[in-house]
């Protein structure tokens, strides 16, 4: 704080209609605030966030030459950005604004104790005012954004995202470790719900991508190095064949690496006979008029499917989830194949034909006399391969019958699992994964395609098991997020970050290890090396400051002083009319 500037604090207590005022005596709180140190103006108002409330702040800043504003209202998660903008419009630095939460932290949780709630409100306002006096100007920084997106994965998700971004006028670098684009979909003979093959569906996308002038394609390649921060990443891509490396400046990233089709060794005799295949393997068989047995090439006349193979197994990490795409895919496959076969059986635990056109597929299969047979939880069908023949035994729980069947082909609808090399990708891009093995989004409902690494998006089956149509939805959503960042050309970064006091740094590297976002490095150009924070990567969590044994790191906008003054204001009765701390 500049020596000359004495804090002139304005306090605005919000009624929030009945939400706060119904429990807290806001008038009394506003009155009490008048006597707090450095407060030159205090009032209460119906809705501070409304146009009238915002105007009131601006007017009072001018009228009373306020240089600090405290609004006691809802949670900062609601309106901190709103009020910061108002304060800025009134001519003050946005970090000279302090919000007290009288709603979520007081009126909404102490509804039946208005007296005690009012006391608590007064305590909280007293603490906020004390802190406000210690707040400082912080510079508002932006970083430039490179107008180029790195799309990792050239399956249907990556292809759609790349096209969406390129069509908006931005460059794309599309990387895939396989020799060809198209991912899993390109290998499948038929999709659901329509009747086209996978390559018919994804082929046109591949063609368009290849023809697009803004998309640079690197197949047979992987990202081996990745560094930087939002808008300013640097990626190194290596060709797996000739080891040639290329470096790119990248503004945003979309990770769309897809899934692995689980090979269920140990389940239902998989691997003991070539006639026991996964649904993915069935989908990859070349299309023919007759369905042929893999073992001897003879035409099949009866087949069976088993659902939930390697999915929905509580306690088995990575296999606890439902793989979502299989029930409709099995219904479609069964329905198509029944026309050419005598008998088709589907053994299931559940039928989850949830999406558009799926239930119709289920009914179509049944109308063709596909037999659906449910087996009990915990009593899986027993499969044996005897003399090259696949023999099945199970209990049909609804008919209450022991059944047996010798299918020519047994199809296991096995799980969609996370890619075997997902660990490397996770570390490379600073992502996290959930228990099921797939990437964690920033927020499961409100921000499903962004991550905690600003500028890096996730999409498609890598984000969670889903079918091709749903993956395409993700792709366009992630592309929109990427374009949103790049279109502005620059992005503001928060100033509530950590800062190293170089003179105090003892080069212990503790903060480097402690930072969850990899935002701290040692500046080797100094001797001894000094810790250095890349502000664009910093999320302001405070872990480094807490860990530093030399107290060499401060958190801007949450300094020790600012925090301790709140504690003191709470514990020690405020000095009376004299004022000052």
């Amino acid at each position, binding site marked *: 704080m500049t020596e000359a500037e004495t804090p002139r604090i304005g306090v605005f207590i919000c009624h929030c209609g009945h939400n706060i005022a119904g429990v807290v005596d806001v008038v009394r709180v506003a009155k009490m605030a008048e006597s707090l140190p450095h407060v030159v103006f205090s009032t209460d108002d119906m809705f501070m966030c409304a146009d009238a409330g915002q105007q009131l702040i601006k007017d009072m800043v001018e009228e009373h030459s306020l240089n600090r504003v405290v609004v006691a209202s809802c949670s900062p998660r609601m309106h901190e950005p709103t009020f910061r903008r108002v304060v800025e419009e009134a001519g003050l630095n946005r970090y000279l604004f302090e919000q007290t939460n009288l709603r979520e932290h007081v009126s909404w949780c102490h509804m039946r104790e208005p007296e005690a709630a009012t006391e608590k409100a007064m305590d909280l306002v007293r603490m906020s005012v004390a802190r406000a006096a210690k707040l400082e100007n912080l510079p508002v920084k932006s970083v430039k954004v490179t107008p180029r997106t790195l799309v990792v994965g050239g399956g249907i998700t990556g292809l759609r995202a790349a096209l969406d971004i390129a069509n908006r006028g931005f460059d794309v670098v599309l990387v895939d470790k396989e020799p060809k684009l198209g991912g899993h979909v390109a290998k499948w003979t038929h999709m659901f719900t329509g009747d086209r093959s996978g390559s018919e569906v994804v082929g046109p996308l591949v063609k368009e991508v290849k023809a697009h002038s803004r998309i640079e394609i690197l197949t047979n390649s992987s990202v081996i190095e990745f560094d930087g921060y939002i808008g300013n990443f640097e990626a190194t891509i290596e060709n797996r064949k000739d080891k040639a490396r290329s470096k790119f400046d990248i503004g945003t990233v979309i990770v769309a690496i897809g899934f692995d089709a689980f090979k269920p060794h140990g389940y239902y005799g998989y691997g003991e006979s070539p006639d026991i295949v996964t649904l993915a393997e069935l989908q990859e068989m070349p299309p023919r008029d007759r369905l042929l047995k893999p073992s001897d090439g003879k035409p099949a006349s009866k087949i069976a499917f088993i659902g939930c193979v390697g999915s929905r197994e509580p306690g088995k990490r990575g296999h606890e989830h439902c793989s979502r795409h299989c029930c409709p895919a099995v219904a479609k496959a069964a329905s198509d194949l029944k026309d050419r076969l005598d*008998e088709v*059986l589907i053994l299931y635990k559940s*039928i989850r034909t949830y999406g558009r056109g799926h239930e119709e597929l*289920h*009914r179509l299969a*049944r*109308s063709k*006399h*596909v*037999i*659906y*047979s*449910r087996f009990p939880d915990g009593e899986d069908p027993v499969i044996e391969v005897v003399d090259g023949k696949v*023999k099945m*035994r199970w209990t*049909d729980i*609804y*008919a*209450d*019958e*022991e*059944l*047996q*069947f*010798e299918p020519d082909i047994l199809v296991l609808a096995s799980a969609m699992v996370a890619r075997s090399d997902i660990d490397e990708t996770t570390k490379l891009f600073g992502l996290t994964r959930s228990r099921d093995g797939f990437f964690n989004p920033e927020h499961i409902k409100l921000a499903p395609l962004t991550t905690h690494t600003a500028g890096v998006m996730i999409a498609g089956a890598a984000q969670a098991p889903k079918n091709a149509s749903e993956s395409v939805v993700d792709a366009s959503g992630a592309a929109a997020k990427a374009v949103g960042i790049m279109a502005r050309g620059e992005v503001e970064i928060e100033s509530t970050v950590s800062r190293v006091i170089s003179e105090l740094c003892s080069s212990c590297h503790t903060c480097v290890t402690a930072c969850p976002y990899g935002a701290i490095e040692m500046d080797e150009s100094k001797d001894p090396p000094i810790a250095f924070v890349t502000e664009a990567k910093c999320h302001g969590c405070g872990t480094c400051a807490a860990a530093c044994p030399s107290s060499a790191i401060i958190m801007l906008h949450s300094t020790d002083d600012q925090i301790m003054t709140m504690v003191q204001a709470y514990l020690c009765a405020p000095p009376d009319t004299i004022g000052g701390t």
Partner: protein
Amino acid sequence: MNNETHTPSSDFAKEIALIPGGEVINKCIQCGICTASCVVACVDDQYRPRRLIQKILIGKRDEVLKSDQPWLCMTCRMCEERCQEGVSPAEIFHAVRILAVKEGHIPKVFQITVEKVLCDGWMLADAYTDFNEDEREDLGLNPALAWNDTFTKKVKKKYLAGEESA
């Protein structure tokens, strides 16, 4: 293969689907609402419409046709009213009965009553006594009931000759 375990087949369901009443058997998704609504299932814990339909769908032809179960349905149609898929277990069991009769399986009481109805023209010829006649007269009703048995005999000849077996 074990002789006691059944091998599923869709043939029986296809057969039932050809009989009036059985056409939509394959729409059954085994949800169970029929059995939950069934009054007979409430009092007889062996009677389960859903189970009987699944037995048809997996092809247990012999067991179903020889069973008493399809004959226990009261045709109250609560299942039909509640089924969300448009299936009527009551109608399916009618279709099963018709097929069962063709193969010589019919509960004695049904066989006897059918005989009676078709020979006498109505069900209670034996039960209509002088006492009943008097009762009707006292009430001002016509004691002569004038039932026609010629037509029912024709019906028997045309549709049920040799159908009700011993």
